[in-house]
């Protein structure tokens, strides 16, 4: 699993790749909460996520809720097919803002 953060305007784009599982999700959780803590909009690029389990989904949910409390935006971008299936299983595909591309997300997140 890798987790890369870049800034586009006032949005932080967190690009995740590989398997997000019980071993790697604590790193994802920390990275997402750090970004949300900056009171920036956060977009999670999930195009390269090959696998996500309940602990990975929990990290997304926690960041989403923290963002909501601090009234900053939080969205997912180009969610890979395996990850989308898991979000659907969790009934979260309609809870998260999901964008087709980073550009769409940056616009939506303005």
């Amino acid at each position: 699993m890798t987790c890369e953060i870049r800034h586009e305007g006032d949005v932080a784009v967190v690009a995740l790749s590989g398997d997000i599982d019980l071993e790697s999700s604590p790193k994802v959780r920390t990275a997402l909460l750090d970004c949300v803590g900056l009171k920036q909009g956060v977009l999670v690029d999930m195009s390269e996520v090959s696998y996500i389990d309940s602990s990975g989904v929990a990290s997304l949910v926690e960041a989403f809720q923290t963002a909501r409390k601090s009234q900053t935006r939080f969205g997912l971008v180009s969610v890979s097919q395996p990850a989308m299936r898991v979000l659907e299983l969790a009934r979260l595909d309609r809870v998260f803002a999901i964008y087709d591309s980073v550009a769409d997300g940056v616009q939506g997140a303005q």
Partner: protein
Amino acid sequence: MSSLDNLAQGDPMSRAGDAAAGARLLALRVPASPDRLRLVRAAVSEAALASGCSEQCVRDIVLAVDEACQNIIKHAYHGDPSREILIDVCRDEKRLVLEIVDFADPVDTAQIKPRNLGEIRPGGLGTHFIQECMDATEYVPPPDGAGNLLRMVKRIS
């Protein structure tokens, strides 16, 4: 003393007989540690692929096994990585039967239930994923010396 003794116990011919009936695809024993779950997923994935499951079916099986192992790591062993998990994958005609064994105290299965998904909060999704991904799951009496045996069944599709 070889650690294979436990695996090799019993009559090898009767085991070979099992496999002849097309039964066992894989038996796996690993430490109950988060950094072993990749290994479990890789092995179970290959076993499911080799038995003719589609990619989506393989993914469902892998997620269910991973979540079952996570629950053992977190709730049954409370994070103690010196404990072990056994995973057994058998084929029964058009179904895969996945058995996950731990050596913890027997769990009160009434306590294991998915939470209400309407309420959005981190956690509490594992058992729900297992139920969604599998066609049937049940705790059955474990073999001698073991704590719990979760049996999960998935139609090969």
